[in-house]
């Protein structure tokens, strides 16, 4: 298999398989989670200001008082790389084109130099967070294989995408194929790992906020 055949495979059957597993996993898990149901809380609801599902969805995006000072790397690094990933995935021209081809939606792209810069900043934030995870004894103790694995699965597509556009290490064709392949690995892993928080995040926040809101506790 030469490099163009490899690229064509990643753009063809590889993508087909990855998107298939992704859809299968996402639908399976979402349906499973949302049909679990909970018993009705028969206690009379208490009302308190700021206690609701919607409040919690937003409040959990901000660090609780004092936490920013205690673990600045987690919060600032976390913000940077999440926003960075969103910019790269949703505002990079080739990515928008892929989305348009898959679901028919399209919007304007950002210049490729800006996407390149965002990739560098995102990777820097991710590396700092990895170093922090290794350096802090508590974080290291709490980390399992899944944490290291999902970090790598998220990092490699950004790295290969950036290296492809910058023509580093390997010829563009091979690097592009590796980039697409790594993104496909990410698609396959996502529904079955903690990366699924991309789908469950707001639902679970709403749930927690709602349950506690019923008790009159703003969380």
């Amino acid at each position, binding site marked *: 298999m030469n490099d163009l055949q490899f690229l064509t495979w990643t753009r063809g059957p590889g993508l087909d398989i990855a998107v298939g597993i992704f*859809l299968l996993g996402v639908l399976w898990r979402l349906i499973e989670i949302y049909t679990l149901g909970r018993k009705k809380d028969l206690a009379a609801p208490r009302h308190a200001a700021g206690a609701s599902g919607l409040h919690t969805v937003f409040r959990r995006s901000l660090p609780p008082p004092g936490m920013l000072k205690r673990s600045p790397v987690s919060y600032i690094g976390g913000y940077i790389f999440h926003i960075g990933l969103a910019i790269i995935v949703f505002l990079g021209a080739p990515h928008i084109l892929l989305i348009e081809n898959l679901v028919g939606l399209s919007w304007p792209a950002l210049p490729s130099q800006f996407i390149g810069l965002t990739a560098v900043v995102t990777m820097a934030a991710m590396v700092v967070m990895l170093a922090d995870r290794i350096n802090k004894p508590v974080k290291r103790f709490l980390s399992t294989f899944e944490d290291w694995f999902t970090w790598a699965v998220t990092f490699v597509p950004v790295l290969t995408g950036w290296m492809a556009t910058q023509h580093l290490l390997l010829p563009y064709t091979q690097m592009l194929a590796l980039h697409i392949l790594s993104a496909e690995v990410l698609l396959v892993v996502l529904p079955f790992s903690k990366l699924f928080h991309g789908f469950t995040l707001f639902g679970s926040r709403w749930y927690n906020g709602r349950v506690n809101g019923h008790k009159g506790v703003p969380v």
Partner: protein
Amino acid sequence: MQGPLIDTLARRGVTRRTFLKYCATLASMMALPPTAGRAMAEAMAAARRPSVIWLPFQECTGCTESITRSHSPTIEGMIFDMISLDYQETLMAAAGHQAEEALHTAMKDNAGKYLLIVDGSIPLGQDGAYSCIGGRSNVDILKEAAAGAAAVIAVGSCASFGGIPKANPNPTGAVSVSDLVKDKPIVNIPGCPPIPVVMTGVLAHYLTFGSLPELDDKGRPKSFYGDTIHDRCYRRPFYDQGKFAKTFDDEGARQGWCLFELGCKGPVTHNACATVKWNGGTSWPVESGHGCLGCSEPDFWDGGSFYKALSAPADPLKFAAAAAVVGAGAGVAVSVANRVKKNTAKAMHETTTLADLEK
């Protein structure tokens, strides 16, 4: 047409100055030092017609057309007058047994010294019967001719990589020259067709230095195939700005915006079209408004649609809908199982009374 090239050119009205300019251009295009232009001029001017045998196999003659016509009449065309093109079916006057005799005479007289140029792929299916010349299969002819060659130049994507005959499902079992010839230096000059100056550049290099130019991992001269079309494209700034033509005749297309979304394969195609251009520097595919097809890359014909962007799926998704249905089904099944488990647990639940605890 005997004697050194410079005399031949002089007879054709090409001045020494024009010839030197040509050599300097060629040297700079091949990324050789400035002095190489002069060395090239001297070597080529004095060169004594090396024997060249050109074998056409499964091909469309597009490569020959490209090299003999698109620049005609220019120095490139005349370079062919100074090599002794002893066998070229399209160009030679001889035919039939005469032609075969010319081939064998050239091979015998110049054994070990002639350059072998091949265009077209070689079919191996049905013992090579898909393409025969003078009752012999291409694979036989190639093996015999390659054995006595100083070097082999594979002209065009078919000879270099198998090209269109090798495209899926490859009915004739077509292969490239390098699939068959292992013991001779091979230069691949892919393209469908290749750029004339690349061809003459390689010949000039051989005549000047007695060696073949530096090649990349696919056997292509690095000086011409070192960069991608995308890297050298004059529309590149628009790619970087995120400005893309959406159709072939929209405002973006008229403004010369990037053709990436229309399927341009420039980013994965190594060739010199963007710098050398075609038809004597007149234009080239991207400048004329059409994306690059990637014709100088192996298996370009099977690389997905010419009109699909590189980041778009090469084929429509086949499993997605089925996978979604299976996923939803699995979700529902697991959810039913969970409900059953919950209800069973509920049914099994025994109420504990105070009396039970006091037992």
